[in-house]
């Protein structure tokens, strides 16, 4: 039987950025869906919450993300109904076990030369500690305090590494992420200024509504100032 193998992504999302702060985990991603160089959709969420406890975000092929979410939501539901205790005592999927499960899925698909073309970010809060991990299309896993997929790995990670401390407050963490997203909007041509923030703590797991970053000052940046030529103000070189 001849099966097609995924060779390239078609409809894509760009970076997902995340960090652990004092009391939880914060993720950010823009809501742009790209179709090659076409900006296809401006309001597509690339992060979802699973079982009100775990955040799952993705960059890369959007249809693969949708399939993964479908499977994970079914898994979370099955988890609540399994076991004789579930009537009295809720059993829910933990972030770490979801991360491991996705690793197994991604690795198996890659081993059949037909990967889910995504970088996945899993975030949660359990056993009184925050959890943040990534899985790539090959099935590689990393558990870290700072994560950034796609272009974020080049543009956002240096900023995160410079500014991050383990005792960041939520406000400081949010400001740092917004700064990263702004830089990504400036320099990643598949990014937009319309972003979502997602937070998971001991008691909450929420994703904000999409909102626009304020980039009105962007053109005033030093790198954007051009010297005007001798001909006094007409922009010639």
């Amino acid at each position: 039987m001849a099966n097609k193998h995924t060779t390239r992504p078609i409809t894509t999302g760009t970076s997902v950025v995340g960090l652990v702060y004092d009391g939880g985990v914060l993720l950010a991603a823009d809501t742009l869906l790209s179709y090659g160089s076409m900006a296809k959709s401006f309001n597509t969420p690339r992060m979802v919450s699973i079982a009100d406890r775990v955040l799952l975000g993705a960059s890369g092929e959007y249809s693969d993300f949708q399939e993964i979410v479908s499977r994970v939501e079914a898994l979370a539901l099955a988890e609540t109904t399994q076991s004789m205790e579930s009537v009295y005592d809720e059993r829910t999927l933990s972030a770490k076990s979801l991360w491991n499960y996705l690793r197994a899925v991604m690795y198996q698909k890659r081993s059949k030369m037909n990967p889910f073309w995504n970088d996945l970010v899993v975030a949660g809060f359990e056993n009184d500690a925050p959890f943040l991990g990534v899985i790539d299309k090959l099935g590689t896993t990393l558990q870290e305090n700072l994560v950034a997929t796609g272009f974020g790995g080049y543009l956002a990670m240096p900023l995160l590494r410079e500014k991050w401390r383990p005792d960041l407050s939520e406000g400081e963490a949010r400001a740092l992420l917004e700064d990263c997203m702004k830089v990504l909007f400036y320099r990643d041509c598949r990014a937009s200024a319309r972003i979502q923030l997602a937070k998971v703590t001991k008691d909450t797991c929420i994703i904000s509504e999409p909102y626009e970053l304020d980039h009105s000052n962007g053109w005033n940046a030093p790198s954007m100032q051009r010297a005007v030529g001798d001909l006094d103000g007409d922009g010639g070189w």
Partner: protein
Amino acid sequence: MFRNQYDTDVTVWSPEGRLLQVEYAMESVKQGSACVGLRSNDYCVLGALKRSVSELSSHQKKLLEIDDHMAMGIAGLTADARSLAKYMRNECLNHKYVYGDNIPPAVLMSDLADKHQRTTQTYVRRPFGVGLLVAGVDPQRNSCHLYQTCPSGNLYEFYASAIGARSQSARTYLEKHYESFPASSKDELIVHALQALAGCVSGDDELTKENGSIAVVGKNQNYILIEVEELQPYLDKLEIKRNDDDDAEEEESEDAEAMET
């Protein structure tokens, strides 16, 4: 029991609304030698009386390791038990590979009970002729649990239980003492298990380091098996305890223990 026209197939009901094949399978469990289980908040202990066919033969193993966090004691058809152990070990390994963590015992036991039930509703199969006592630690809730399955597919969770030949004696002992178990230490639990087991020996036999065995799992305790030489110190404690009990109860008259064949 009795032979009649409704007991040949597991898929045939008797007029009294019973599945006789399933009940006959449960008889097989009662023929196996005794196995006890009890737990505290931190540990779960299984004890078993190992039978040997003759003086020349070894004693039949009755306690099996399923995973670091799960132990199983058996009574009945040993071969059926080994088949179930193989299934459970496989499930544990698969779960560990996919989810990176120990399987919650409750989840595995639920699937195991379904596996038992399936055999009671199929024309071509027979029920498993073995009762299991499964001790396990739930990794998510960090709690200890003891479960019992029987050929019918019923699943129960217990604070303490005993199955097999003459196990009523053990159950009576456990009922008497179970309220002290949650606060007991690991060693105290082991001695309780041996004490319960001691009442299940037949006739002139006694509980020795050859025919007794203990398995322990706990919150910070991977599966261990205590047998032969390592068991002797606990058996010695048993003697001391028994003498103390005898002295204390000299004036009391004890209830006659019901004996089960």
